[in-house]
């Protein structure tokens, strides 16, 4: 489920400094102007060839590696709650599949892995390691290219908590880690429904955390050692309301889809705020492309069913919108909550949809304005 803020956040302007921020200010606070070019595109929804006994569910994550192989992290099967003694235990609910560059099924990775409960993202790092983020287990798991576990961050709650309605509004929030400002989290990997992971060129790890009590970005070194975190719950720059997706560019800048605040915030690798992009609706998923000229893609989901208002934006890294494409719905070339974008190759995207249980392969034709 994707929580949507009921607070429409509009009309607040921030004072930003520096040439880059000044550029971005031009679009601050405006609805997406009608002049945004529509990018012509084609789509294929049957690119992936699934064996007869394998089904996708909600596609939370899709990512390619350097050889063009696809990894799909999906909510499928039977999530189960078991009665133990005095506690309830959760099992299963998500699976990770690998496909070749032609869409042929290769294998399943991580059968029965402890962390696979409620899929939220899969990403591939520059070394072709495969990382999954699970918002049910509060875990980030690093697999090598062979599909073996190399590292885990976070810990699955031992048992399913039972919520008792309480008149005490100050009762402890769900999840763990809430030191300091609300949502700032603890100094470590106590995630609360984490949403995404990104990497810089040094191998540092950035975790967007997340849907739960935390509203922060946590940074770890390549060995999983906690370095720092930034952010808390709020509307100011540097604060978040559901940091839902994260990507890093070649310079190590970090782009955070601040979903509830309807903006993308840009930080340097130390968490210092640089700029924000407020002209792309409600960002669910962001992706920074490869190559010498990097583009930023962001999926917009304006309603929680994916039926009324959706698009994907293509931007320059400085926030200038190149164009947008797509609409909401269940047909081909329509988008039902695009929770993941793979943009390794410019103009050749893979998008994963929550409400349409599919991966669409998109081919953009940017030189053919409609």
């Amino acid at each position, binding site marked *: 489920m994707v929580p949507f803020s009921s607070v429409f956040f509009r009309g607040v302007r921030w004072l930003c400094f520096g040439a880059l921020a000044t550029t971005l200010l031009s679009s601050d606070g405006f609805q997406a102007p009608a002049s945004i070019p529509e990018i012509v595109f084609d789509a294929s929804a049957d690119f992936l060839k699934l064996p007869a006994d394998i089904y996708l569910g909600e596609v939370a994550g899709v990512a390619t590696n350097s050889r063009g192989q696809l990894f799909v992290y999906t909510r499928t099967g039977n999530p189960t709650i078991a009665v133990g*003694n*005095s506690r309830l235990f959760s099992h299963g609910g998500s699976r990770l599949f690998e496909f070749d560059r032609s869409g042929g099924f290769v294998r399943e990775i991580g059968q*029965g892995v402890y962390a696979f409960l409620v899929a939220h993202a899969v990403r591939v790092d520059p070394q072709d390691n495969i990382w999954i983020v699970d918002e049910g287990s509060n875990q980030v798991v690093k697999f090598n290219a062979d599909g073996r576990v190399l590292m885990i961050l976070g810990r699955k709650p031992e048992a399913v908590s039972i919520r*008792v309605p309480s008149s005490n509004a100050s009762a402890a929030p769900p999840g763990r880690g809430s030191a300091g400002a609300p949502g700032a989290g*603890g100094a470590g990997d106590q995630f609360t429904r984490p949403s995404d992971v990104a990497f810089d060129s040094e191998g540092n790890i950035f975790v967007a955390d997340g849907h739960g009590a935390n509203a922060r970005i946590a940074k770890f070194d390549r060995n999983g*050692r*906690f370095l720092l975190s930034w952010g808390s719950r709020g509307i100011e720059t540097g604060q978040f309301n559901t940091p839902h997706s994260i990507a890093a560019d070649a310079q190590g800048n970090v782009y955070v889809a601040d979903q509830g605040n309807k903006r993308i915030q840009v930080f340097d690798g130390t968490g210092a705020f640089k700029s924000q992009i407020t002209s792309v609706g409600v960002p669910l998923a962001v992706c920074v492309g490869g190559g010498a000229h990097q583009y930023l893609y962001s999926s917009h989901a304006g309603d929680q069913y994916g039926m009324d208002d959706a698009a994907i934006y293509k931007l320059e890294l400085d926030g200038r919108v190149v164009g947008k494409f797509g609409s909401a719905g269940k047909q081909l070339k329509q988008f039902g909550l695009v929770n993941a974008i793979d943009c390794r190759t410019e103009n050749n995207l893979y998008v994963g949809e929550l409400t349409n249980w599919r991966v669409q392969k998109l081919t953009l034709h940017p030189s053919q304005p409609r």
Partner: protein
Amino acid sequence: MKPILLLVAVLAAHPVFGQTKAKAQNVPEIPYESVPGFLKLPANLYLGEGIGVATNSKGHVFVYTRSGDTRLFEFDRNGNFVREIGQGLYGFEFAHAVRVDREDNIWAVDEGTNMVIKFTPEGRVAMVLGRRPEAVEGLVAPTPGAPEPQPEPYVFSRPTDVGFDAAGNIFVTDGYGNSRVVKFDKNGRFVKQVGTKGNQPGQLNLPHTMAMDANGNVYVGDRSNARVQVFDNDLNFKTIYDNVGNPWAVCISPGPHQYLFVSNSIPDNGLAQYRDLTGEIYKMELDGTIIGRFGKPGKQLGEFSTVHEIDCRNPNELFVVEITAWRVQKILLRAASSAR
């Protein structure tokens, strides 16, 4: 929101978070190395949280893990996968310890079903202790403020570990719910128990792990009290070692000269504040004299991510299993003062 209220709430929900720096100072460092890639898993098998590890007399390694389901795997002495034991077992829900007795029977302690299960060396169930609550009535939320129920002889409350003496008597630490050590005879009949919740000698606050020496003494890792308590074979209190932090895992090696290993593990909550306080394992004489220490917290090879059980059948070749790294490490200890 007042932070103190929140802290109290968190502590109430997780009474085991406290973790302390060991009092022992200037302890010699024991050189060691970790053997890379010891366990070989088939492509479709994955370890989850490393909860239990134990060897039998032939060097086979048993790993009890919280995977998607709690599972028990057997490997040979070279780390090759042999088989799974107890597929779909009624007693497997949330692993806590695995031990091997003198006859190579394999014992699993499950804190999710309140059961202790004895398997023959062939992997068949030979005896069970405790009983999984029937699920027919669902889950009843505990009444706030209600007194703890008196423990019953044959009912565990999240048991943690098991040990055996030369006569075959069975000792169970019990556990997260109860605060006691229970002695059964070799046929599973209740003999005696010791312990109530508290911090006095003979009391326990999360008896998390245990080991026995050749004389039948019981060494209990009294984790939240940050001490190892020693009881004799009749569960009479003998002594306390309180200088090695919070014992998450204890092990006593066999042979004429027995050693006690104690892990002051970094907590599983992932908070960086414990990095400089915890994560080491102590090697001790049975009388509590510290010989040395080794290890530090971390996710890399040779570092420890919340050690949960130690196998020390060979005191110089340990197996350790870790909660927050889904792995078993084979650790080779070197003598600190050995001449080259």
